[in-house]
């Protein structure tokens, strides 16, 4: 893995705007599509009577998907260039779009929103951008596809860009977080090589653009949060008194010697060591899975959180959050769920549903229940306090899932709002 940076991307687009073709093209142009897979695609494309390579065959993995020619579920696609590892969450365009895009985007830093140059900004585009905004993705690439079908006309590109800019004004996005690229996924224009057909476009190709993004720039500047996942007690002769607290760090750095507070007990101690396997580290960086030991004997178990004493999160037994419903069972007032916040679980009761939010930026309306794919603002009462930051400050410490007590299914995802 030789220090290659990792960029995670979610794709969004409606049916037939060429999403699978784009991904197939990215795989093809980076040499990630092996000969045998390419041969299989050629063979099946021929069988179906296509006169082009149907790259969607590279990503639609299930029998039912190939039967129907649609994408049912999120697939993860990988490709590497010399400098960068990419993970693409390929989310279906139409079936249960909101939940699927939220799922795919939750693990991504960048969204590619595809627009069919012939159709321009449509209702789906609103929804995709709304979700990118809700999830606070760091960067959006608007790929205006099928430029070959509009004669590579700059005016078409500029018109769509202007329409999209109007959308950006309604959101929290800064214009520098958004990049517009005119492409033809089918013909490979502006994907890995600059298009001779569009000399008026002076920016980077899609691949060049994705390569210049830096993971650090895509990361939030947040306080360090270390939720304790697992307590390590070897009880062997060599490590008889060892008590380590394992977890993954979110937000900022933690260093040996840092003064820390353990939540919920609010006990204080100092970081004695940070370890990964047999290595002793000086600093743990965001995203690192490490084991921490403390100077003092402190009672700590799974679900507790270690933070710097100077940077405490909110500890509350009631929260308000934006919810996206990802299950067929609706969320209703009075209902109880298990709320999983990071690795911590508490019981939660729906106190009130304040509104259902329209994903086309047209406003909010009141509702009794949130159905599958609905997004709304909900207040909860919790059995125990959780230690959170607002989602806009720390994505990992500001999000949670709701688990149905009966079926054990994950039914909702929540983004915690700042206290008023």
């Amino acid at each position, binding site marked *: 893995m030789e220090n290659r940076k990792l960029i995670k991307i979610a794709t969004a687009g409606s049916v037939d705007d060429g999403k699978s073709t784009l991904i197939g093209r990215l795989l093809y142009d980076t040499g990630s599509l092996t000969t045998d*897979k390419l041969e299989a695609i050629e063979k099946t494309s021929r069988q179906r009577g296509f006169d082009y390579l149907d790259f969607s065959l590279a990503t639609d993995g*299930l029998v039912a998907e190939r039967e129907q020619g649609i994408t049912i579920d999120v697939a993860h696609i990988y490709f590497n260039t010399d400098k960068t590892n990419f993970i693409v969450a390929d989310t279906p365009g139409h079936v249960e779009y909101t939940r699927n895009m939220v799922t795919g985007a939750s693990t991504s830093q960048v969204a590619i929103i595809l627009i069919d140059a012939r159709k321009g900004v449509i209702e789906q585009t609103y929804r995709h951008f709304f979700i990118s905004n809700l999830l606070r993705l760091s960067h959006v690439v608007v790929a205006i596809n099928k430029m070959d079908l509009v004669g590579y006309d700059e005016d078409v590109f500029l018109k769509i860009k202007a329409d999209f800019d109007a959308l950006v004004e309604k959101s929290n996005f800064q214009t520098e977080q958004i990049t517009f690229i005119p492409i033809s996924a089918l013909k490979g224009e502006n994907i890995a090589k600059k298009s001779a057909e569009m000399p008026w476009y002076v920016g980077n190709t899609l691949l060049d653009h994705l390569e210049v993004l830096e993971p650090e720039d895509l990361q939030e500047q947040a306080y360090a949060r270390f939720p304790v996942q*697992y307590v390590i007690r070897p009880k062997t002769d060599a490590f008889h008194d060892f008590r380590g607290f394992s977890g993954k760090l979110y937000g900022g750095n933690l260093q040996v010697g840092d003064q820390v507070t353990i939540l919920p007990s609010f006990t204080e101690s100092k970081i004695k060591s940070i370890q990964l*396997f047999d*290595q002793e580290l000086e600093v743990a960086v965001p995203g*690192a899975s490490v084991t921490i030991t403390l100077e003092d004997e402190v009672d700590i178990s799974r679900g507790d959180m270690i933070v710097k004493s100077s940077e405490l999160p909110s500890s509350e037994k009631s929260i308000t959050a934006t919810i996206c419903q*990802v299950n067929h069972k609706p969320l209703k007032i009075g209902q109880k769920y298990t709320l999983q916040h990071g690795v911590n679980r508490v019981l939660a009761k729906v106190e009130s549903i304040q509104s259902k939010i329209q994903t086309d930026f047209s406003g909010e309306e009141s509702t009794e229940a949130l159905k599958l794919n609905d997004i709304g603002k909900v207040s909860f009462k919790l059995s125990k306090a959780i230690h959170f930051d607002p989602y806009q400050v720390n*994505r990992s410490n500001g999000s949670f899932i709701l688990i149905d007590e009966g079926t054990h299914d994950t039914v909702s995802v929540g983004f915690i709002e700042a206290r008023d």
Partner: protein
Amino acid sequence: MSNIYFNPKESESIHILREVAAQFERPVLLFSGGKDSITLVRLAQKAFYPARIPFPLLHIDTGHNFPETIQFRDELVKELGLELIVRNVQDSIDQGKVREEKGRYASRNTLQTTTLLDAIEEFKFDACIGGARRDEEKARAKERVFSVRDDFGQWDEKNQRPELFDMLNGRIDQGQNVRVFPISNWTELDVWEYIKTENINIPSIYFAHKREVFFRDGLIWTANEHVYREPHEEVKEKMVRFRTVGDMTCTAAVLSEADTLDTVVEEIRQSTLSERGARIDDKRSEAAMEKRKKVGYF
């Protein structure tokens, strides 16, 4: 003292392994002796160090494994002080639960599923950790990190739990189990580069060596009493290595001179053939993997 060390994919895998240990009562790591499960063992060592890995290994032995792999397995277990459970496909055959395939493409690969499901029931495993990766095969690209199976071991590909951020929901009913894939997001090259960086031991069959083989359908088959061969199929000695290690009856070799980790990594980097291109079992039909997965295969 090193200052900073950070590998995002390794970090994610360690996080997943710790969730397994915390959320389940009887997890097990499915170990085949192949590079992916060997990588899992290293990741588990890292996740729980300086404590021991808090779950046993389970090997479903087809009886048709490469002897080098079995030898490697036993040495690894001994060196790390791990608990190893072995269950044999031969026993399932003797009990009449499965029937040995016959003829040109006979393989015990599919038969493993029955032995595996029986072992899960016998030991009441609630989480089975496996080394499958999403880049291997298109049905696997759809797989969750925590993938719930019903008490028949079945995978319902149309009704999977969404996985949001890195929160993993391992809540299940009695009788269900979860298949866990900590290296879902790794590619074959990631695994090889990791083995090289970490200097992890792997079975010798991954390196180029002389072996008795024969050619059929454009693939290189191991010549051995377990592999069906027609009289006219001529055995030759060739310099080969394996990219994937499964049952001898379903794993084809590749011609190679790569006999060190450096040359192996370089070969993978240059290769235009996918890893599973040498898996004979996947060539049975376009949906071969998905069909096996649905009934409980890994």
